């Protein structure tokens, strides 16, 4: 056992269990970013818990040397909420996927977000059901051909970030599985956030949905298709920040402008503005770049904090049941 003052390394957060994702799966990169972030923020393994549901992503807790609870399909946010009420000071991470978090568990995710429970929720979005062998998921784009949709899917997908915003989330961020720097920054911000931190991670499923995000994740196209937002900085992208986002007040929408010629028109990112967040989260390739980083951060009291503040005794036992038994009219028989 290490003494509590030791600075832990990434290695200290890697469990001894053999990792069993498919070779080349984006989950490996995410795991590395998470363990690195844990070391970087000075997390304590005994104070850290990973709670997951069901799916490829939900294997995550086995591979982290912290406390872990691999629960049932879709219910991780509910279980993590109970844990957070029992022990509000723990660092609780929820690992879920697009099927787990937005299909079977959509209701719990909605409520964890609107309650602002102090959970770091990592949603690995690969737009497919991997563990059950490749059926389309609620984030699959229209026309996605899978064993269950041989003619292509025909129900409109949900956009995770917009769902979170609609649910009342107060922290919404995005990262790409293999983007060490961007994802690392997002994970550290999520860790520091006091409340529900929702992080969508674009994760490549090499077996069932390979390259589904390549329109913006490939290195060659990254500059033109990724917009890394930063609070207080202009919303620019492209080679050397050549392009910028401006607001078209006539159509109440975003437009792309030449950032050098029309620098004054380029919007500056305000992470507390939900309207801007909605516009940014709605952007899709090829018309727009994809917004990455902390898109929305607007803190409010975390649910567990309010729960304890409102609880008459902060969950402490200050009265005796023997007295409670007599808090009514009683009579004696001799």
């Amino acid at each position, binding site marked *: 056992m290490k003494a509590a003052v030791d600075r832990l390394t990434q290695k200290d957060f890697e469990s001894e269990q053999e990792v069993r994702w498919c070779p080349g799966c984006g989950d490996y990169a995410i795991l590395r970013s998470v363990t690195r972030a844990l070391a970087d923020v000075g997390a304590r393994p*005994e104070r850290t818990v990973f709670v997951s549901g069901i799916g490829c992503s939900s294997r995550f807790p086995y591979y982290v040397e912290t*406390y872990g609870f*691999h629960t049932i399909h879709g219910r991780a946010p*509910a*279980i993590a909420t109970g*844990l957070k009420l029992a022990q509000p000071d723990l660092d609780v991470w929820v690992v879920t996927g697009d099927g787990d978090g937005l299909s079977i568990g959509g209701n719990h995710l909605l409520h964890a977000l609107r309650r602002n429970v102090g959970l770091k929720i990592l949603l690995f979005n690969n737009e497919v059901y991997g563990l059950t062998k490749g059926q389309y998921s609620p984030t699959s784009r229209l026309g996605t051909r899978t064993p269950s949709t041989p003619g292509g899917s025909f129900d409109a997908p949900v956009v995770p970030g917009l769902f979170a915003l609609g649910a009342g989330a107060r922290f919404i961020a995005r990262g790409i599985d293999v983007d060490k720097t961007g994802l690392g920054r997002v994970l550290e911000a999520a860790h520091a956030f006091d409340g529900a931190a929702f992080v969508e991670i674009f994760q490549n499923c090499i077996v069932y949905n390979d390259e589904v995000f390549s329109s913006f994740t490939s290195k060659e196209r990254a500059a033109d298709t990724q917009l890394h937002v930063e609070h207080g900085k202009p919303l620019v992208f492209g080679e050397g920040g050549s392009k910028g986002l401006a607001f078209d007040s006539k159509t109440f929408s975003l437009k792309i402008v030449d950032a050098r010629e029309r620098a004054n028109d380029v919007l500056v990112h305000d992470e507390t503005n939900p309207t801007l967040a909605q516009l940014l989260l709605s952007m899709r390739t090829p018309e727009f770049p994809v917004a990455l980083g902390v898109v929305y951060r607007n803190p409010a009291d975390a649910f567990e904090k309010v729960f304890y503040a409102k609880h008459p005794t902060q969950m402490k036992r200050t009265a005796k*049941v023997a007295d409670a038994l007599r808090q009514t009219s009683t009579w004696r*028989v001799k």
Partner: protein
Amino acid sequence: MIHPEQPQPESIVVRFAGDSGDGVQLMGTQFVGATALAGKDFGTFPDYPAEIRAPAGTTFGVSAYQIHLGAGPITTAGDAPQVLVAFNPAALKVNLPLLERGALIILNTDSFTSRGLAKAGYDADPRQSGALDGFQVIELDIAKLTADAVKPFGLSKSDAGRCKNFWALGLVQWMFGHEIESIEAWIRKRFATNESVRDANVAALQAGHAYGETAELAAAIPQLRTQRAKFPPGEYRGIRGSEALALGIAAAGELADRPVLFCSYPITPASPLLHRLAQMGAHGVGVFQAEDEIAAVCAAIGASYGGTIGITSSSGPGIALKTEAIGLAINAELPLVIIDSQRGGPSTGLPTKTEQSDLYQAVYGRNADAPVPVLAARSPSDCFDVAIEAVRIAIRHMTPVFLLTDGYLANAAEPWRIPDLDAYAPIEARTVDPARVQQGEKPIFDRDPESLGRPWIAPGTPGLMHRVGGLEKDVRTGHISYDPANHQAMTRLRAEKVASVARFIPPQRVEVGAEAGDLAVVGWGSTYGALYQAVQQVARTGAKVGLIHLRYLNPFPPNLGELLAGFERVLVPEMNMGQLATLLRDRLDVRPVQLNKVTGQPFLVSEVVAAIKRELAELSGAQRKPRAV
């Protein structure tokens, strides 16, 4: 029939009935309080409609409250009421068939208009049609008498009308020789902030009481006197099932010295427990109203994983939704108590009516081999002890535990000798020896050899980081394991763990009647009162009949088979189509005779007596004849 000149009866059954907005439930609970203070035993049965405010005057909007009071032991709310107070024609129509022949009926005549009669579905006024022949009927314009009494306080007509339950209560108090001071005190406290309503209700209560006393009318209003109960010495209070459950949960937390997180989703008839626990913060109890039934059980599991006592509660349909998560708690070996306030089903069924039809769901209702201990409370006060026992088993064996109660128990009330909490053993979780952790060991699944319970290790504990979950785990290390022999071993272990509960429970005893002989009546849950009275009644005649009432339904007490073998025949009365009967056949190879009732109403003592007599008669006939093979 009640005659004032007769010697005092042992007990009397009274029923108040009116519109769901008439304040009948309040009248009933206040009458019960006064009954307790008068030193009488009691049993109650609130019988209210599913609609919050059904259309006034209709039969489906009738709310009733039945009280059985007198010398003890009173274990039921009574079979047929001997007194009915009916506030409108619908209340009369619904309740008339329940009454004992010759019962006393007090009618509020104000509502016996052609409109009121039509709404109740009466073609003719029952007062003239002969429908009330053979009953003692007292007609009073309670609405007008109340209005006269509260006139000085300047209430609106509708507010004045709302005082009529207290007028009627005043009259009933006089009839039973109960004082009204305690009720007055309650009104003054309850309506402290609204002077005119407070004074009007007190005036109505006093006026009703005085009405009975008034000399020229005394002859018309009979005085009903019952014997007082002979209680063992001690300090007593009245208790409802939901209140006893809440106090039992708080007591379990105190005995375990851990906080309690009660996670629930509103559902009839389980919600009173949620409301009561929400007031018990000072006992280290927290309440979380989840977004749905699944989230409720999951949050409770999360709390237990975090070292807090996680409890969830619902009724049948909600329990069905929790099923998968209960399997998770079994696999992860976490303590959890699931309280099921049973109601009529299937599906939404009869939300406010009582039934015992979730026994299969509790014992068998999960995917795979997934056993859990199942307990049932038998009376309102018994809920206290069963709640403590459920938490004790959950922590000792590290398992989910089912606690079955029902709509009847949740709302019924009885007197209760306040228990001495110092007499209860502390609830202790298995822990890990810190010396072993120092040496780098992780004995996460180092089980107690007797209970097979593992240590309860919450996140935050240094040196014991580990993973649990729904996947099968290695019997020794707890790591994921798909090994065939290991799954066999783990499945067996889970079964043995639940079976081991039997080592810790007291032997089953005969509650009343013969220890062996002709007929064993075997029951569980809230039928206790009716079965007790019925068996006692028949046993007094010298018949060899005994009552075996089960608290532990899974596993059974180890001596149950032997006990039943001492009887010629087994009769199982239950409010379902034979679920305990199935369990007895399954576990003990007993072939019981069934008595099943699913009307949403509790058993009447008379129904059980008739069944017992029928079985005894058949047995004596069979003994004369050569036994059929």
